[in-house]
């Protein structure tokens, strides 16, 4: 009975080890396959991210420079350089994504403020201009003396 139990445990252990190895192999190979920096899928994702960030008014100049270098490295077949550039690009995109929502809100707030100001401009002109003009008119004549006319 003991011998049977031990042999079953051994088989179970072997199967577990085998499954763990398969899982490890899958995990280690997945990022390399999915993050091949020169694959059309990866490049498309990068361009898509840049478009999205750009639509949120984020300055993507630095990321575009990285993409430019990445494309050139891929074109030369320099995979090592491409991987290095891609990691920097991914880092740059990640930090820009964190900032993008705030940037969008800033731009929308600025636009709304500017629109309200422009919408009020005619009203402000109508109400304030005569008062300001009068104030300046009197200011310019403050040293004038009043003389009774005969």
């Amino acid at each position, binding site marked *: 009975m003991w011998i049977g139990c031990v042999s079953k445990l051994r088989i179970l252990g072997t199967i577990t080890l085998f499954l763990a190895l398969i899982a490890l192999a899958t995990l280690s190979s997945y990022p390399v396959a999915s993050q091949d920096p020169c694959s059309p899928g990866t490049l498309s*994702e990068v361009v898509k991210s840049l478009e999205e960030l750009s639509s949120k008014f984020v300055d993507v100049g630095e990321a*575009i420079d990285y993409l430019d270098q990445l*494309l050139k490295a891929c074109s030369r077949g320099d995979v090592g350089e491409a991987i290095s550039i891609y990691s920097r690009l991914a880092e740059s995109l990640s930090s820009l994504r964190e900032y993008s929502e705030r940037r969008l809100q800033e731009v929308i707030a600025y636009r709304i403020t500017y629109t309200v100001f*422009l919408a009020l401009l005619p009203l402000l002109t109508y109400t304030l201009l005569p008062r300001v003009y009068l104030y300046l008119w009197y200011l310019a004549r403050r040293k004038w003396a009043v003389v009774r006319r005969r």
Partner: protein
Amino acid sequence: MGCGEEEVILDEEVFAVIVALAVVASAVGIASIWRPQEEGFVAIGLLDESCRIGLYPRNAAPGSNLTLCISVFNYLGRPAAYMVSYKVALNSSQLPTNTTPSSMIPLATWVGALGDRSNRTFLVKVSVPGDAVVGSRVALVFELWLLDPRSGTWVYSGRWVHAWVQVME
């Protein structure tokens, strides 16, 4: 000014004109803030080896190298990844059109990325095919392709430039 005459400090007509100007400025300003994005475009230009418009090569020997300059412009309203593809057309029917690229095989490509409202000018060295027939005319064609992030493929933009050269000994 006699007694009973009223001095008008701010003339009413002048005031009306100023208010009207303020209304127009307000409307134009708001429209410019919220105007929809214009239709974007890309462009490619061919320049000589000094990166100027002018002295394009007229003659070339088979297998010889020529230096030219390419300008790429991005006004799509978004960043773009581009590819310039070099082909040699042996006659007019092999030239690209606004919708279809040339059927010839690309002999060289140059890639890069551009932000919105930006351009890049770079020198390229291209070779005339060694099997080009002496005495014939060939067109050096540069097509502009863009990476379509939706499909993940390079798509012909419909923009190209070409220069005819006479193949000579």
